[in-house]
């Protein structure tokens, strides 16, 4: 029982961050038909900026919590600016060109990762805990800050689903994802919606980064680790499908926490790959993909 609860808690906290990450990926794909290989770099930039700003701010006598808050806000704004710049000068030209946009984003990803390594150095950083202490729950244990941050992630993921399901912007995004020509004929401004979708996805990556900043070890290549799992999640779930990305994220989180417990993290990653192959064999367009 204790073991079950522990694995459940682990799965929950891993899936929360994967959901935020893969929601962004699937949103960009749905709206712009762009596979954004550079998505991990948004996440990475946010984390790296926080890792620089927090020690800087605390050294200037700011309390830890406010240092985190201020750093997170600055880092998220910077990430959004990067997203807007990349959209304007690169992604805008490659909308609805899956292969072309992928190739370009691979280049961008490599370029940005190199620049990060140049500016932020290659030494991994672990920031101090935001909230100290542990919570025991039905025999399982979780650090308080993990619990809080997981809770926040889940709330954000749910409100994002609400935004996409019910608001005017969300409906426009889904209409464009469904059939962008028909959506344009209905008077939905495609270019503006595409920009909003791209920025929303960037924002999600930035939030995921900010929420993970007190938890993970931060290095210049932190984005790539998440990127592969995010891709596996959306391939399993079906590219462009929002429920699919959530199902995929939860599935790989289960494999990672359960497989990581009984075997080894690398074998768990391998397990994800095998499952992806199996899913593609049965449903070549993912679980929720259609057509």
């Amino acid at each position, binding site marked *: 029982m204790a073991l079950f609860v522990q694995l459940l808690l682990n799965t929950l906290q891993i899936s929360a961050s994967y959901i935020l990450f893969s929601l962004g990926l699937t949103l960009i*794909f749905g709206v712009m038909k762009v*596979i954004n290989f550079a998505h991990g770099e948004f996440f990475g930039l946010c984390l790296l900026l926080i890792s620089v700003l927090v020690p800087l701010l605390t050294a200037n006598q700011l309390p830890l919590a406010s240092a985190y808050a201020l750093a997170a806000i600055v880092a998220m704004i910077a990430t959004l600016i990067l997203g807007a710049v990349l959209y304007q000068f*690169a992604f805008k*030209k490659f909308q609805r060109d*899956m*292969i*072309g946009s*992928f*190739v*370009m984003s*691979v*280049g*961008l*990803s*490599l*370029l*940005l*990762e*190199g*620049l990060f*390594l*140049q500016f932020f150095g*290659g030494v991994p950083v672990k920031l101090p805990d935001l909230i100290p202490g542990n919570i025991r729950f039905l025999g399982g244990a979780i650090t308080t800050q993990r619990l809080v941050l997981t809770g926040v992630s889940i709330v954000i993921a749910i409100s994002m689903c609400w935004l996409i399901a019910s608001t005017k912007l969300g409906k426009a995004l889904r209409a464009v994802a469904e059939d962008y020509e028909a959506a344009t004929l209905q008077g939905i401004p495609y270019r503006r919606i595409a920009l909003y979708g791209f920025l929303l996805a960037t924002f999600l990556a930035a939030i995921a980064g900010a929420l993970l900043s007190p938890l993970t070890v931060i290095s*210049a290549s932190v984005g790539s680790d998440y990127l*592969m799992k995010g*891709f*596996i999640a959306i*391939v399993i779930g079906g*590219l462009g499908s929002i429920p699919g990305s959530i199902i995929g994220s939860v599935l790989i989180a289960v494999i990672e926490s359960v497989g990581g417990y009984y075997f*080894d993290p*690398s*074998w768990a*990653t*391998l397990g994800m*790959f095998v499952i*992806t*192959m199996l899913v*593609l*064999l049965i449903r*070549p*367009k*993912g679980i929720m993909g259609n057509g």
Partner: protein
Amino acid sequence: MGESSLASFVQKSSKSLSILAALLALTIGASTGSSFAASVLMWIAINILMAASFRFVQLIGELNFAIAGFVGIGAYVSGLVNVKLGWSFFLALVLSAGAAGVISFIFGYITLKAKGPYFLLISFAFTEALRMIYTKIDYIGGNSGMIGLFPPAFLTDYYAMFVVAVVIAGLVILHQLEKSDFGKVLIAIRNNDAIVQTVGINVHITKVWCVVISSLIAGLCGALMAHANNVISPGDFSFLLAVYVLAYIKVGGESHIAGAVVGATVLTLLAQVALGFGPFEHIFYGAAIVISVLLMPNGLIGLFQKRVSKHG
């Protein structure tokens, strides 16, 4: 650009391809032995063949990031055969290409049911999964890999020349295949696979064979590379290798096999200058891809084609 000038360009450039190859062989002949120049020329040659193999799958309109995985399989099999079992070097070459071919058949049979973004993402994951497997098997060196892969003694002084000869043979085979009826079917699949299916050609299995041929060559590249560098480690065969190959193709141009030759030569030479600056290698390849995609979508040979069509 007119259709006819394109055709004449293709004819011209296949001639220029052989001239380039001869030039390369000549340079290598002048610098045999284990000099640095010979190593660089070997790397160029192997990169050219990898780029050409990657481009071969592009004929069916797919990006095959699993190429790095198959290069890795080739390198590891040749290491296993040559170092652990002590069998002949040439047997190692054949077996490494064969192993990559067999595994790629299974891989292709499953994954080619999907296409476009699904295929490229799964091929990317395949490469990373293989890399992870290498680190887990202690018999082949785990994380640190294998050392002591040397070409046979009588080839040591001429290994660079041998590599170039194999690469040229590989390029000629790929070029001939592309021009053959099989190659025309591949391009037809890229343009419209439904029509190809309606005339009674099995699209799926044709695509599988395309990937198998490309992977045989990739496996061979891996074996050549392993014996050129004398050491292999899992990190050599990450998806980054596939991204570099993509950069060669993008910079050189996709429309003709000469693009692989031009792109790999230019970037490998430039990277020698960039090397030793650490993260600069990432920035270099990243910028190369971004710049060529944004500014010269048809690569360097595309620029050349434009000039040809302007003057002729």
